[in-house]
């Protein structure tokens, strides 16, 4: 009853807003009637710590950076590459890449944007003096000299990037990397304006100082409250940009945010309250959306010395994995279109082919039966219970899944102690292998299977479960050099499933509500990269 009332009110507000419009304009391509005020408002979960592209290390700041700055390449609504500042890009050997930059690109203060601005920004990202948390991303691109620079053993100007002329950028990698252009989309590699940074230091991102090259510029910001962007007239594509203003509101509490969305205060929010999606979808299917998102949710199993003895036995790990009723988790807890996971790599990853994983085709009863057998063989069962602890970081979602999984394992004779830690302690505990099982998730940095699989190679610092497999490592090494790495990735997933290196649980979807008058939203972009310059608001 309450819910209905709220909805009627929300609709009433929307309708009232719609009827007040008078002057009409139409969209140049589709011919739709545009709304008179072209303002896009959305909700942020947390205040972004910074909008300096080289310093950003989380998604909220990343979203803002994509509006303010434009990198070499951007992504379209499907997540495919499209020109940004660079109009053409090519490589003979996947190791030396050349980017042709557009000649009409300008900074918001009118300065021309040249290849040197990229060189400056990329060196800055790697420079120890910048102390960027995301310096590792530069290393990940295999750019020549990155590692040495970050470690302080080489000068920043030895980085493998140079301006051939004002409009040609040449990048040299230390090994062939066919997906380097995909990586160039990332905010760490966006250009920054040297003169501004040198003049204002840390204050260069203040609204009165900042110089940008994207479709919008920063107008106002109040920490933990809101920020406002205005259209940047100097942007090369400014003519095609329809939304005039972007406003972001910081609202920590998800329920509070949803109330305000329903009261019509803003147009888009993600991070919806746990369990609210089915109702939202039922009530207004044109508002609620779930699209694939390249993140995988899994339980890390500690296979190192500090973990429980039993967990070194692949059969115990298999039994645990078989007993997880993934359908219950996705259909009854999350309820927002997530996919049950049997592989680490997300199913929607570009070009990736999922292997056939045996237990994904069994019924849950078969899985449970097999799990019981395996546990019995390993010597555990209700009469000899296996006591394990499961750590997760504070979050309603993680809590609900952990509670459900611990109940699913009960019949195997597994007693779980739940330990909830706040984020920093959790990272510390997980990073030092002081756990048996740990809730984990990994999101793609770029749209390619190696962004997931690399994590489980034995020398990866983030391989918190300390899974070690020579076979797996060899496959990844070969994949890095292969022309077509996809079959090798598929094989690598098979190895993971055979060893049950992790317990995959589900593959993410991006769930959000979007006002139906906002059009051309990037519904197919699995990396959740959106550009306000692409969208527009139609009149009702």
């Amino acid at each position: 009853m309450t819910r209905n009332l709220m909805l009627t009110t929300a609709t009433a507000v929307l309708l009232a807003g719609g009827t007040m419009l008078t002057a009409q304009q139409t969209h140049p391509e589709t011919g739709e009637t545009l709304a008179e005020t072209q303002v896009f408002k959305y909700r942020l979960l947390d205040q972004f710590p910074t909008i300096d592209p080289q310093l950003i290390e989380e998604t909220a700041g990343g979203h803002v950076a994509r509006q303010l700055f434009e990198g070499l390449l951007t992504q379209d609504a499907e997540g495919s590459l499209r020109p940004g500042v660079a109009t053409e890009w090519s490589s003979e050997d996947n190791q030396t890449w050349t980017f042709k930059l557009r000649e009409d690109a300008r900074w918001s203060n009118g300065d021309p944007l040249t290849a040197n601005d990229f060189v400056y920004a990329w060196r800055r990202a790697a420079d120890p003096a910048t102390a960027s948390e995301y310096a590792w991303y530069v290393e990940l691109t295999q750019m020549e000299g990155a590692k040495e620079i970050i470690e302080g053993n080489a000068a920043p100007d030895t980085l493998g990037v140079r301006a051939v002329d004002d409009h040609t950028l040449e990048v040299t990698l230390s090994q062939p990397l066919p997906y380097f252009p995909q990586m160039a989309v990332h905010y760490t590699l966006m250009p920054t304006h040297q003169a501004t940074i040198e003049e204002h230091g840390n204050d260069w991102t203040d609204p009165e100082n900042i110089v940008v090259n994207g479709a919008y510029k920063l107008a106002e910001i109040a920490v933990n409250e809101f920020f406002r962007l205005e259209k940047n007239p100097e942007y090369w594509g400014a003519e095609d940009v329809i939304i005039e203003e972007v406003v972001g509101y910081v609202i920590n509490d998800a329920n509070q945010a949803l109330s305000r969305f329903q009261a019509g205060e803003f147009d888009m929010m993600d991070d919806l309250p746990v369990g609210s999606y089915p109702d939202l979808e039922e009530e207004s299917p044109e508002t609620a959306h779930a699209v694939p998102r390249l993140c995988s949710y899994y339980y890390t199993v500690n296979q190192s010395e500090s973990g429980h003895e039993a967990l070194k036995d692949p059969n115990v790990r298999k039994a645990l994995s078989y007993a997880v009723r993934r359908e219950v988790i996705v259909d009854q807890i999350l309820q927002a279109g997530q996919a049950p996971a049997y592989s680490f790599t997300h199913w929607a990853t570009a070009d990736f082919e999922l292997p056939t994983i045996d237990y994904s085709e069994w019924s849950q009863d078969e899985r449970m039966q097999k799990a019981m057998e395996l546990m019995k063989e390993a010597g555990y069962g209700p009469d000899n219970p296996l006591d394990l602890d499961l750590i997760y970081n504070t979050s309603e979602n993680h809590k609900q899944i952990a509670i459900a999984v611990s109940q699913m394992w009960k019949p195997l004779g597994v007693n779980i102690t739940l330990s909830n830690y706040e984020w920093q302690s959790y990272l510390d505990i997980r990073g030092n292998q002081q756990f048996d099982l740990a809730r984990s998730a990994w999101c793609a940095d770029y749209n390619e299977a190696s962004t997931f699989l690399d994590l489980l190679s034995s020398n990866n610092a983030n391989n918190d479960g300390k899974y070690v497999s020579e076979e797996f490592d060899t496959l990844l090494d070969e994949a890095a050099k292969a022309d077509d790495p996809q079959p090798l990735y598929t094989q690598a997933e098979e190895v993971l499933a055979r060893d049950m290196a992790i317990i995959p649980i589900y593959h993410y979807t991006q769930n959000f509500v979007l006002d139906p008058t906002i059009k051309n939203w990037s519904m197919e972009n699995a990396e959740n990269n959106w550009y306000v310059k692409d969208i527009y608001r139609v009149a009702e």
Partner: protein
Amino acid sequence: MVVSRSQSAALAASAPMGPPRSLWADARARFFRNRAAVGGLVVLGLVAAFAIFGPLVAQHSIEEINWNLLGKVDDAGGPCFLSGPSNEIPPCSETGHWFGTDAQARDLFARTVQGTQISLMVGVVGALIAVLVGTIYGAVSGYFGGRLDNVMMRVVDVLMSVPYMFVLILLLVVFGRSILMLFIGIGLISWLDMARIARGQTLSLRGRDFIEAAIATGVHPFRIILRHIVPNLLGVVIVYATLLVPSMIIYESFISFLGLGVQEPLTSWGALINEGADQMRQGLWMLLIPLFFFVVSLFGFFFVGDGLRDALDPKDR
């Protein structure tokens, strides 16, 4: 802060109790004439009975998930006595979820019982710690007087200017969350006022004949404090403690709101209310049931506390 410094000041200023027996009898009579106080006492008794005997009646454990209801709690998870043809809630004979379930389809009755136990425990133990530390500190300070008194009271002043809730948050973050930490943290926040009250009372007791006599006969000072002073502070202490319990419970609920309370699958009123507030759209019972227990118990404590103060305060109103 619910127990105000004014109350403590008033208590500190009021005269110590007269001869024990007649006072207690008098107080009892006065207390039972106060209908609100008696009502509060009855409510608290019922809540305590709920916490003690609840587990015997509950049909489920606090952690077991009803897989049939998981995922449709908002339609079918309501209290089973509301079951009827117009909704999907299964009848009580089938599920036994008298209070419905929480968002994860666990029995809310069992969880409310358990939350009541924890919250009452935090309230009572926290108040006990505050009262014990505060009384002894205040009595020692007041009894010895002079420079020691001066130093000890300055220490109290210093501690009063520490932003405690912030420090408690830090402690819980740094040392991890545990019930023990919660007890100690909450208890230690609140002993300062008690120390001031106890000192004030002790100061006026010191000049009395029976204390002088004890000193004259060479009784050890600590024996005097424990045997003669503390028993005479009892009236004030009881009143203060009763008023302290609800503030402890409120503190705990605040800590739970911040996500620093007890670990799953354990719960508390604060945690239940907070989860319920998050689920307001899905089902109001998840908020209203724990909130009801929280509110009536706090009402109970306040009425009993006020009643006790009126009853034990020699000034006739």
